[in-house]
């Protein structure tokens, strides 16, 4: 099992560290899956993380100048690692002016992802900082736990409003309630609602547009709302934590079951699933 990668380009480095920061905000620990062409950050829906799951996918070619990996076997050319994304985020945080960043899998005392940062210095030689991030190597028999979640059979799929706007709305609502109702219809309308004994607040968004899914429910009444009540903290975490500035953001609502968010940015896609509360 071998892995080595290198980033030289500053823009790529910044982009990569923004993605990692986003992941770090969403998951305390996650699984990093490495394949020849892609990197995946996966959080599977365990009860321990509140039923939330995450799937983030990036093309290595758009970030790395060098990328070499070799999985356990030729027919299973993949590596699954468990890591604390916050560690990776911290390692990259002080690498913003780096000449080069190298990431490689090592096994000195324990399996580690070694991030070696080459920084400019006042002297003739560069300053070198290494961060050994402990990782757990996930054995092949457990790989099935980390399959890509399928797009749920949703009732309504809708484009999200500007995330910043949505974030400020949700942040205010968070002070009033622990849960939020997201409802949307196929007419491009979405409402964010909180209801408590003292106050009911609804923010209406319209003309958002509905993405053209081939399998979407054709027979559904355009006006009828599909709704799900979710943990407002989880939603706020997603909106506040995301740093990828997606070109496209949408959500799929399965009535009373789950809300599936998809944030797309050229070479990065982030899917986030928040289960509905009872």
């Amino acid at each position, binding site marked *: *099992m*071998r892995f*080595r990668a290198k980033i030289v380009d500053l823009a790529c480095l910044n982009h990569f560290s923004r993605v990692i920061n986003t992941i770090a905000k969403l998951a305390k620990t996650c699984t990093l899956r490495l394949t020849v062409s892609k990197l995946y950050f996966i959080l599977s829906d365990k009860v321990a993380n509140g039923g939330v799951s995450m799937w983030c996918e990036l093309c290595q070619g758009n970030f790395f100048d060098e990328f070499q990996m070799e999985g*356990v076997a030729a027919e299973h050319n993949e590596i699954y690692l468990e890591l*604390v994304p916050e*560690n990776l985020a*911290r*390692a990259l945080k*002080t690498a913003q002016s780096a000449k*080069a960043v*190298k990431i*490689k*899998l*090592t*096994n*000195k*005392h*324990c*399996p*580690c992802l*070694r991030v*070696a940062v*080459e920084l400019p*210095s*006042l*002297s*003739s*030689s560069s*300053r*070198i*900082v*290494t*961060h*050994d*991030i*402990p990782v*757990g*190597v*996930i*054995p*092949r028999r457990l790989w099935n736990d980390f399959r890509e979640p399928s797009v749920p059979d949703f009732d309504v799929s809708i484009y999200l409003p500007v995330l910043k706007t949505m974030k400020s709305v949700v942040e205010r609502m968070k002070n009033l309630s622990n849960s939020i109702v997201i409802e949307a219809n196929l007419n491009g309308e979405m409402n964010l609602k909180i209801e408590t004994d003292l106050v009911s607040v609804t923010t209406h968004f319209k003309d958002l547009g509905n993405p053209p899914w081939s399998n979407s429910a054709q027979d559904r009444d355009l006006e009828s709302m599909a709704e799900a009540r979710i943990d407002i903290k989880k939603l706020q975490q997603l909106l506040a934590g995301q740093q990828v500035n997606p070109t496209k953001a949408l959500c799929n609502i399965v009535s009373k079951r789950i809300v599936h968010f998809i944030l797309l940015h050229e070479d990065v896609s982030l899917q986030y699933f928040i289960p509905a509360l009872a």
Partner: protein
Amino acid sequence: MAEGGVRQCQHCAVPPQLSLRTVNSSRSAFASFLFAPLFFQLYEAGGPPPDRELFRCKVLMKSFLGVFRSLPSLEKTVGKCLILLKPRASRLVVQLHCKYGVTKTHNLAFQECERLQAIFDTQRCTSSLCAPARVLAEAVVHFPPTLAEVTLGTGPGGKISLRNYVEDEAGEPSKTMVTELWLAKDEFETVAITPGSHITFCLKEFRGLLTFAEASNLPLTIHYDAPGRPVIFTLADAVLEVHLVLATLSDPESSLQPPTANGVSHLPTPSEDFTDDLESYMIAMETSAYEEGSGVPPSPTFPLCTPHPAESDPEEEEEEEEGAVPGTPPHKKFRSLFFGSVLTPGGPSPAPTQEVLAEDSEEES
């Protein structure tokens, strides 16, 4: 007047020079700022003879710092700052003469005290390093703000390394990220160190001093000796002399051998990462390797030395390690008494009749 006070507890003022000193509650850190009279526009060493004597007092750090809170706004508004020591009234008066004729007067209560002096001798330290504060400040940003201790040592090729100190939990492969930084010799102004030497000290106090050093744009000199002996950081210019003395973690001989967090011998070469030798890259790693990783060598322990009485022998001043109970907060291991007999332990204030206005700061801890 820019005063870099991020220290913990108390101050002493001693004419004919003004000196500010403090020690933390566990006595593992001591700082002293010595201002030459020339530092000030005007410096008068008191009036009639009895007041002219060396005078020492302590004031609460909190109240003294309160006066200089929010430096940016002070710098904008304050024209001059007048500090008066009035022993008869038991008051330390700080007057800030601000714009528009506003004068702010702070009357601080103080207690007389004995001399607070850590015993250290930079001449006796075997290793010393001097670098612009900026170099060191840029080095420590790579460590997380919550990190307690950092190890300074020498790496291959004469490089100076800084790495976060990780306490090895019994047998468990550490789950902590290990950050290590190498600085080339030519980033330093002077390097005179014993090869293979390393020391571990608290990062927080060091960061505090670096903030001050960076602001005052002075090179910082680090003097150290064997692990367990204090490390001394000094800053000096014509009018100011600063010393920060920190306890360091002791390091029993035994822990030098196994490749633990302390072992310099096992530090990977930094060049390895950038020369790309195929071998280091081709580290075969099977999933089973994870289990093997648990056979981590024994953790470095802190020896249970026979504790010497606090004010026994002036030669014993540096360190008194106590056996650290595994799992206790890191600071506990720094229980070092590098203070000689100058301190009466828990002794009453020299002027018992005096009304105690500020509580003895020992109770702060």
